[in-house]
């Protein structure tokens, strides 16, 4: 095979692959983002509808262990770029804001909640208006548009995970999510595989370990528990999460 012919074939295959990829990518985008005919919708309605698209079962709904199986470790380390470079370190470390200030329903709902734009604007109508990232937020606010955050942690749709049950027994957020307070860009810290879930449910949660994972010094009660080998186990019945 001549070199020239070889490169022609390589280029051809690459081109075909790219074309296929783009087509499939377009198809994928198209699937959930078409407005119903004849509907004139405002930005909020559009966003709502696009969010509704996520309720559709995806092609992965019944295969694989977690939403991001194509990543080694079920998505561990996955760190998509966000439309606004939100700095968790500044808000959590510097300003000492509690996680549930913004993720307000983590302790009362299965869903942790994402702060409404109005929560951001509680401060950012005054603070840091000249910074480019905050300008993006202000612009969106002025247009009454939400910021389309990219999802980092995703469980398959056949798993019904309940934040409130975990938060209310005192499991630190960082046990599962890592030290988000130190992440300039949030990444997936845990594998979110079923084995990962069940190992904690069976072996139990140690408060001291959870506090260390969060980056705090365990308190004396937690240390005493650790010395005595107290770990909080939980039910691992299938129907807790799969129904």
């Amino acid at each position: 095979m001549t070199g020239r012919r070889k490169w022609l074939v390589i280029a051809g295959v690459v081109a075909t692959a790219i074309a296929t990829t783009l087509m499939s990518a377009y198809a994928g985008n198209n699937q959930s983002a078409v407005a119903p005919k004849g509907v004139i919708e405002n930005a909020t309605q559009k966003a709502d509808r696009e969010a509704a698209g996520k309720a559709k079962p995806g092609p992965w709904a019944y295969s694989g262990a977690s939403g991001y199986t194509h990543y080694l470790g079920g998505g561990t380390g996955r760190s998509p770029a966000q439309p606004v470079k939100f700095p968790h370190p500044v808000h959590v470390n510097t300003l000492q804001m509690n996680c549930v200030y913004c993720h307000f329903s983590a302790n009362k709902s299965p869903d942790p909640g994402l702060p409404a734009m109005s929560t951001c604007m509680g401060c950012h109508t005054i603070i840091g208006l000249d910074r480019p990232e905050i300008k993006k937020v202000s612009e969106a606010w002025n247009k009454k548009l939400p910021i389309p955050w990219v999802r980092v942690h995703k469980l398959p749709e056949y798993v019904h995970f309940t934040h409130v049950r975990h938060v209310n027994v005192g499991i630190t957020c960082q046990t599962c999510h890592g030290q988000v307070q130190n992440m300039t860009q949030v990444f997936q810290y845990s594998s979110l595989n079923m084995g990962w879930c069940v190992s904690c449910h069976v072996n139990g949660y140690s408060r001291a370990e959870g506090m260390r994972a969060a980056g705090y010094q365990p308190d004396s009660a937690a240390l005493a528990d650790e010395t005595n080998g107290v770990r909080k186990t939980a039910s691992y019945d299938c129907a807790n999460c799969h129904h």
Partner: protein
Amino acid sequence: MTTPVETPSGVKRRDFLKVLGVTGAATTMVGCSTDQVEKLIPYVASPDNTVPGVSSFYATTCRECAAACGLIVATRDGRAIKAEGNPDHPVNRGAICARGQSGLQGLYNPDRFRGPLLREGGKMQPVSWETALNTLHARCDQATTSGKASKAVFINQHEQGLLYTFLDEWLANRGMPPHIAYDAEAPFATIAANKAVYGVSWPKLDFGAAKLIVSFAADFLDGWGLPVPQQLDYAEARGKIEGAPRLIYIGPRRPLTGLNADQWIAPKPGTAGDIALMLAGKMSAADAARTTDVPQSTLEALRAEVMSAKPSLLLAGGSGARALDLNTEVATLNRTLGNVGVTVKPAESYGAWEGVAAPAVLNDVVASMAAGEVPVLFVRGANPVHSTPHGLGFAEAMAKVPFKVSFSSVPDETTALCDLILPDHHALESWGIAEPVKGMLGLQQPTMDPVFNTRATADVLIASLVPSPCFPCAVDSEDEKRHAAAKAKYPADYRAVVAAHIGGNGRLQNALPKALLPGTLPARVSRVARTLRSAAGEKSTGDYYLATYTNLLMGDGRGANKPWLQELPDPVTKICWQTVVEMHPETAKKIGVEAGDHVTVTTSAGTLTAPAFLYIGVRPDTVAVMLGRGHTAAGRYATGTGVNAYGLLTASNDSAGGYTLVGTRCTVTKATGHSMIVTTEGSGRQHGRGIAQALTLEALLKGEKHEHEKFPGQAPAEFLPGLRAPVATDAQGELGDPKSAQKGEYAPDHPSGLSKRRWAMTIDLAKCTGCSACVTACYAENNIPTVGAEWQGPILYPDRKFPGANITRSREMAWLRLERYYEIDREYKDVAWNPEHPGPEARFVPMMCQHCGNAPCEPVCPVYATYHSPDGLNVQVYNRCVGTRYCSNNCPYKVRYFNWFGYGVPDRPQYAFPEPLQWQLNPDVDVRGKGVMEKCSFCVHRIREAETLSKVEQRGLEGDEFTTACAQACPSRAIVFGDAADEHWSVTKLIDDRRAYHVFEELNTFTAVVYLQKVNHPAPAGATA
């Protein structure tokens, strides 16, 4: 393959693999990053009191029929996902029927109009609201200036509320006559008789106070009157067991009420009035026997019983030439028997039928339209083109109206003929008010933002007073003054109308949490027909009587485009997605047809060809056809499904102004062709299996436990459901081994506490009427796909593509099905007509996963997808299931359902939730994929939700704290769910009832569902029938 191989094309295999490797990786990365990137969209400003992932509840009023029951609508993230009954509401007291729940499928109907439409060049084109309103304004002005405004017609679907008076004011302002409150389902003869005899349109009927209920063709359990309160009262009365009323049904066809009756008397169509006359002493039993074709002994026994049983409750429905006479006679009988004030309570009247106009009013309208006098026709909600007898010629007359406006939010046959469509909000998006019982107002509030670009009709009418180019008009122009004066008469919108009526915004806001407050609505006066079309004018001939009927599901046709209602089998015939001609097996033999053979029914008004269905509950001289199907332009599920039996009806009226649905003479002939009957029924009899057990009151009081059969291998011990059940060793592996020390969560002292609970259910067959509301509740709660639409059928066999094709192959997905059995000893085709005992006993059994303690499905699953949980549930793990279907083969109850197609995958042709129907899906329950087995889960997500809530509130579960979807909806209150191991739950008492039994308990399945035997009340001793 380590040696490089020269491929024919000249590309070395190793080079090719390298290239493939690189592009493959690229494809994976890019491909995945597109189809798996999910966006998280926050609120811009979060609404108050909403927590994502937790339902918010809105109290409102149901508008699916005239009863105006109270609803509690669960919404999640701004979308209504479930409609349940409002426990505080005086009409439905927490229960809800199948139709009420299906309101959600009207809200999210994929065929709803997306915005206003205007006919341009013969086609309907989407237009802006501005254009639409200006067109309406101009056309109304035109009608006024041409001097024809007084002939304009506004037909409104009858509903209680202020819209009634608002419309009339608006029309009067335009110089137009008052509107017509039309409802093809209203029992006009009964309403007229009620008004004449009791002085109210609909008195409260106290079934509990009666010792005997006699229904003259009033199907009060399946659509007649106010279905939910009647069923609640009736079932409660029957649930008393001792002192429960006996029910006798009189009518040529045996509807759901007839199947529930202890006795069925089958007079010739149109002659029930003679039985009433006999009871009143105005006719001898011998004469009545001759005209009604009922044995004289039966009639005499009936008379003896009615005279001795006091108090009794006599009801009359019926539709036909003598319907008003029958109703008046029966109402008078109630008075003479002293039932008024005891079982019939005019003082506590319902407002459902206040103001409804008899359909004979349309006679004048049709005449006026046909003469070309009507300048503009408005239709809102009603569909007279479909649901009037075609003999009336509504569609032809309507074509002569120059401008027709529809306010319907969904397509229907009448709207298809209109020139301007101004889609109204759905009831769940609207403001409104009703007076469901005298002196109590029920409020209707939007449960969510409008799905589409629709507007409330009242708001449209207010807005159309001022054309938009005139806003702002030239100052002091004549136009401006006129428009300003017109608009000044009205509040800003309909919400303000409602608020003003109850005393302001503050009171409205305060009343909304329960949507109830004391008050009254302005009096509503029924429009009266000027001309009645006498039945004498109609000379239809033939050997048979035609009996058409509506049921609660399809109604007059309004339910037809809701897949839940199409898929829900008729409670009597168990037929879905199809119209059949019901005839007695003897009749079929005479005509020479078998079940499924096509027959043609001909009356003077038209013909209809449909498959024959052998129904043992219809007189041999009568054929029956259900109304409501056979749409030609009412959306994807309705159009082309079934045949429209209104085409057979002559336009003659009874003296109350109703249509003659029963009693027209017709001929029935064999036609060519054969169709499979689309039914979910396997066999109509029990074959001695004791699935639905019943005993007489006498036997129960004597202490007989079972009615008759003793089964081989019957479990000898009494047991609590699941409590003493051995957990199937095979399914649990080591955990089920009694010698194993490691019991995991099955150990009674495990900290999760799961094994301390035993979820269980009791179903009282003495209360169950077979109405099937539970089935629809299950569909709504558990994201069950409907599978019967034509395009969901088998694709490889085009000849099998018809509505219900999947049902004929038993692919329905109903986790909960309502089985109906007759106590007969042979197949339908061999059942002979016996005038002495026309109707065998019928029994109903809701059948769902029995959550066996010793489940046959569990050991046969090769992948442990089904197993027994420590709290007593038979769990199905969908993501583990590989679809071997062994479990279904091994299930003695046949309650496991397999996903043959991708009903939940949007790009599959079988997709069951076309946009925006999928908005209704319950986010707490998986949408199952293709190749997965599924079944009743005992609403495990509700159990988990309740457990989470109790944990958050740091308490234990309280007795009867929550219940399953089926039990919540049940208008008979027959289903009770709870923890059989915790005495705080009422289920623990019911399990110990003397009537309790397990289905197939001889199989040692140790089921967690306990049925309570039905109790029959045979005729008292001395009576001959």
